[in-house]
């Protein structure tokens, strides 16, 4: 259980003059679920993109199961097949049916035969309750259904960990539930996950640790209980209050009387 899957050490990243990440460090153990949250522009997505090296960091180190991803001899394609990612906008392959979206990685990367890949892909679609939609194209599916296929696509590769980049923020409110259910299910089944989300209910249910990111630095970290009962920094309190207003479901959780704005 305590085997370290991911280790992020002092990661820095800037786009031109804009410093997006300013020294981020954390560790992730096997079967752990870590939730990263924070205001937009805080660097959450960039952090995920650094972890799977789509945008390599400028400075710092990232270790996947002990292997340094910044080392020049590392085969990034092979590494990425071990890190699943679920995108905010799904990014399903538009020209492929649901089943082929899930099986393409198995065939083209893992080298499974067409038949093997199909069996496995159907099983994965079954896990996200999309088996009956296997022969549909992404444009024929709802956002929630597309995202479930996206999760199946990531799961199928049997990655060491799966990154979720705001998987529900592009969804209609009615569709968020079905995606969160699937995420809860796979989290409880022992999938190692880093989840960028503002779904506090999800965080509370499965996160072992939450990390609050603002302006490229970790402002505060702790268990869900810590954040919901006694967050320390004013920035976090303010943010959680905004989330609370947005969802209107945690009135009892945050009883911050003073209305001072924090910049």
């Amino acid at each position, binding site marked *: 259980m305590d085997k370290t899957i991911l280790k992020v050490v002092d990661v820095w990243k800037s786009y031109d003059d804009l410093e997006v990440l300013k020294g981020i460090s954390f560790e992730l153990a096997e079967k752990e679920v870590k939730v990263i949250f924070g205001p937009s522009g805080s660097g959450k997505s960039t952090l995920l993109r650094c972890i799977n090296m789509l945008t390599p960091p400028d400075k710092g180190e990232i270790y996947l199961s002990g292997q340094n991803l910044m080392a020049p001899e590392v085969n990034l394609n092979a590494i990425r097949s071990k890190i699943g990612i679920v995108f905010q906008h799904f990014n399903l392959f538009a020209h492929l049916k649901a089943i082929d979206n899930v099986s393409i990685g198995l065939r083209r990367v893992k080298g499974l035969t067409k038949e093997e890949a199909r069996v496995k892909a159907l099983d994965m679609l079954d896990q996200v309750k999309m088996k009956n939609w296997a022969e549909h194209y992404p444009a024929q599916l709802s956002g929630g259904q597309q995202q479930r296929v996206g999760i199946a696509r990531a799961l199928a*590769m049997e990655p060491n960990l799966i990154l979720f980049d705001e998987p529900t923020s592009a969804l209609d409110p009615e569709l968020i539930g079905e995606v969160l259910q699937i995420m809860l299910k796979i989290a409880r089944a022992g999938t190692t996950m880093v989840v960028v989300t503002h779904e506090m209910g999800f965080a509370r249910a499965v996160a072992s640790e939450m990390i609050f990111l603002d302006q490229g630095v970790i402002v505060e970290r702790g268990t869900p209980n810590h954040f919901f009962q006694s967050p320390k920094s004013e920035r976090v309190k303010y943010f959680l209050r905004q989330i609370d207003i947005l969802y209107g479901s945690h009135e009892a959780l945050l009883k911050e009387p003073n209305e001072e704005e924090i910049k």
Partner: protein
Amino acid sequence: MIFQSIPKELDELLRVLAFWDHILVGLGKTMWLYAWALLIGFFLGLLLALSRQYGGRIISRIATGYVEIIRGTPLLAQLFLFYFLPFSINSFLDDRGLPFIPIGRWSFYVSTTMFGRTMTMVLLDHLTLIGILTLGLNSAAYQAEYLRGAVMSVSTGQLEAAQSLGMSRRRGILHVVLPQALRRVIPSWSNEAAYLPKYTVLVFYIGVTEIFAQAHYIISETFLTLTVYIVVAVIFLILISLISKVLDVIYKRMAIPGL
């Protein structure tokens, strides 16, 4: 009273159509030039488009330069360049006593007899080769831009998703970007497919006997200039309508369901 069995116009048309074997050979040659130019233009155009989009600084600039030079100069000038180039090279080689390129000493042709008329069409000789190559190199520049537009229209998230599964960039482009781009390119690309048959007539100026050369021959035999050109125009109209229709059907068949 002068009795005319058929109107004058119809009589002229029949006199022109009596040269159907020449028209057929000319049309065949035009189609032959078109098919090769389109094919060469497509693959070279695809290479140029991908180079421009994904090639990095140097390669993309070379591709851009190629496209701009080709699109910025007249096709006729390009044809003349390739027509005269071998002769210039030969005189250069000749001055130094080196063996020179054999020009005009070879040809591959097909011959067939239909209704008592023997038709011969040159598939490949020195001039046809220059014609095909120039048209292909020229068309590539235009096709490259249509293809690049289509490649750019596929969202970057698609390639990122492919890479995230562990595919190399190259594989992602091949299996994810191109299948989508090639579907999307058809409507705009049909422009080039419809222009190119008409551009092929320029090779007449370097002496390739395509449909215009045959038209000139028929005019020299009949002096029915207007009728001949109307026949040629109608042939092009039918040909291009067919091409448009075929591409339209392909586009609809290949369309991604739900999009």
